[in-house]
């Protein structure tokens, strides 16, 4: 007989609740340790204010998309096509600028394209009842091909606008911003998402669906509608990431962001989300995304070769998942 069948006295419960605290802090402690490690070894190059800015900028694209991915993974889903979706919006923005649209229109329509792409995934997942893994394996290729078709298989380079400055250091007179405006956008969106997940009925229903979809349906949660919303928001954030990617590249490249989906999913998982749903935090995701940037940046500052960096990142992903297994499960 397992012990779960027995009455557990209240003392042991509060004990286990205390044990949850380090679990949420886990990725953050990891980030601090890794940062401290590199800072100790390369305090001049790594620990400088300018390098910190560089790292934040490097995290912005993956971080923005990972916010949406957190929502998708909490609901028990996955989106493998997020990299393709970033490329698609990046190209849409460039194309619109090239034909003379106002930058704000290009940004809005680019994000709308991402949102529509996500909504399409949500509709297929809920209406045709296919596994999100399969649906997004399909859209992974489809969105990429759409981006290539849109850009006529070449790179679009429109004239620079303010969009190109989203990820550059704030100029004279804007020093008070400390970090580029694109980074602020990601931070503000993260705060909004935290509030949505914690305080809105929609947010709690996303957790409920990921935790036990049948129960959610039985209790009258609009499972289909909620899931479509989840993927649409995921697409919207991929759109934000696409705009930032365009800003970073200064051009619409249909082959950009290939393989980003894995970095984005890894950020969410390092942040403590469970791929089987019901678990995950926005803060954890941001820390996960930052951790990967810090490792890559720190390794290069130490003069390590690229393959070493990739290996270290791989080890960290597995380590994070292993630590996650050790913490008290709510199952």
């Amino acid at each position, binding site marked *: *007989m*397992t*012990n*779960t*069948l*027995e*009455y*557990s006295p*209240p003392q042991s*419960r509060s004990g*286990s*609740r205390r044990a949850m605290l380090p679990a949420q802090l886990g990725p953050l402690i990891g980030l601090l340790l890794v940062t401290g490690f590199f800072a100790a070894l390369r305090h001049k190059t790594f620990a400088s204010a300018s390098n910190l800015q560089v790292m934040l900028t490097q995290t912005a694209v993956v971080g923005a998309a990972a916010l949406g991915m957190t929502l998708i993974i909490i609901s028990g889903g996955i989106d493998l096509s997020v990299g393709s979706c970033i490329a698609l919006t990046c190209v849409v923005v460039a194309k619109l600028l090239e034909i003379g649209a106002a930058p704000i229109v290009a940004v809005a329509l680019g994000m709308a394209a991402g949102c529509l792409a996500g909504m399409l995934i949500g509709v297929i997942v809920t209406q045709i009842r296919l596994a999100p893994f399969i649906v997004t394996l399909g859209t992974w290729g489809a969105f990429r091909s759409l981006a290539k078709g849109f850009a006529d298989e070449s790179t679009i380079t429109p004239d620079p606008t303010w969009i190109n400055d989203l990820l550059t250091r704030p100029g004279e007179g804007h020093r008070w911003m400390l970090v580029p405006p694109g980074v602020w956008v990601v931070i503000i969106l993260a705060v909004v998402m935290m509030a949505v997940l914690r*305080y*809105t*009925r*929609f947010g*709690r229903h996303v*957790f*409920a669906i*990921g*935790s*036990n979809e*049948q*129960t*959610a*349906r*039985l*209790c*009258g*949660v609009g499972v289909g509608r909620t899931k479509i919303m989840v993927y649409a928001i995921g697409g919207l954030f991929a759109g934000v990431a696409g705009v930032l990617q365009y800003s970073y590249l200064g051009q619409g490249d249909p082959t950009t962001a290939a393989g980003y989906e894995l970095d984005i999913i890894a950020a969410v998982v390092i942040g403590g989300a469970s791929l089987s749903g*019901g*678990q995950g935090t926005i803060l954890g995701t941001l820390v996960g995304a930052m951790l990967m940037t810090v490792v890559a940046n720190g390794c290069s500052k130490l003069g390590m070769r690229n393959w070493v960096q990739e290996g270290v990142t791989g080890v960290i992903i597995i380590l994070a998942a292993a630590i996650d297994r050790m913490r*008290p*499960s*709510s*199952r």
Partner: protein
Amino acid sequence: MTDSPTIPPRLRMQDIRKRFGATAALDGVDIEVASGEVLALVGENGAGKSTLMKVLSGAHAADQGSMALDGEPYAPRSPLDARRRGVAMIYQELSLAPHLSVMENILLGMEPTRGPIIDWKRMREKAAAGLAAAGRPDIPLNLPAGRLSIAEQQLVEVARAVAIGSRVLVLDEPTSSLARTDVEHLFALIRRLRAEGLAIVYVSHFLEEVQAVSERFTVLRDGKTVGGGMTAGVPAAQIISMMVGRDVEDLYPRSRREPGEVVLEVNHLAGLNEPQSVSLALRRGEVFGIAGLMGAGRTELLRAIFGLDPVRSGSVRVASYTGPASPARRWNQGVGMVSEDRKAEGLALSMSIAENLALSHLPAIPSPARLDTAAEPWLGRLNVRLRSPRQPVGDLSGGNQQKVAIARLLHHDAQVLLLDEPTRGIDVGSKAEIYRVIDELACSGKAVLLVSSYLPELLGVCDRIAVMCRGTLGPARRVCETDEHRIMAEAIGSAPLPQLHSI
């Protein structure tokens, strides 16, 4: 009926019929429950209880027949629709979202909000009221539901049913995984809810419970209502004979048999926590029972013998073999085990019956036709009710699933059978068939080690019984030299709370 004839009953189901293909799952069922009444619904697995409950809860639509709630026609289109009309179900498999808090689970789908924002204050108040109605205001509202014990999770479901204002509450085998003290709490709660005017349908295999908690009972057999009446004063044997349609005098067959040589010898075996230094000797042609409370370490003992759990000290000898243990080695030595948790551990539910049967020694290239032919004699011998051996085993009723799990050991020709709670949560008919097979196996010289929490079963089936208490195993006694009181006394030891699953 206690009500005057002018007041319609809370729930009436009349002449309900439902066919699946060629088989009639429900073939004219009538039940009635009044407000403030507990109706026990009994019947073997496959008698139609779960189909009837699915019709009631809106998961299936009946082909024929009518239902009425408080005199108004009731035809739910979905489980959600049924809940809105006030019919709540609590299934054996609890349906909570384990990651969400207790409070969120109680109010899932009906969260109080201001615009899109959840009103946590009102949520807290409503959830606390629900828990108070379920008799457990001390359960912390913020705790993730997955951290509660099974008994507490069940109460959270009751709190949910109360919070949505249910009129009819259906409890499907609610005690199958509860300790005895929790069962008593549950019964007290049922009486309180009844006093508040709920109509309660109580589905159970345990006739002792039916007698303890219900006013009336209805018996289903082969999709029909075959009997019923007031529970008080009706002997269990009479209900059983209605359920199976024949008299069950020898529910527990035990042929005369001579024990042979020792095939399994356990010497001072100790696991990481439990067992603590257990010794026993199991002979051919013998059924050896292990009694005890939940958490006494009986399952852990079987797992340690079978090589599933690490062993700290001690030894296990199977025939002449004394080396290290692993489940694969044990199977090769002719030892087979049936897990207490057939859904999580015992069976691969989505695989076919034939594949499950052959899983312990699947050929490198299994041909479905050969698997079917190999499986059929065993399925026949255990009387498994199935459409085809290629059907997923998860489609079968609990009793038939358990028979497949046992048939695997027969198919493997296991000489030593470790059976952990083989009859838990299954119907009387399937139980009788499993007892018959255990007897046949022992007569043909196999050795059976049987862990059970159900004392009549142990006393009826075993040759010798030993009692486990807090990780240690007491002396083995011949079944004629012991009785329920003695076993209970040994099982409780000096523990303050008796927690026997069922006596």
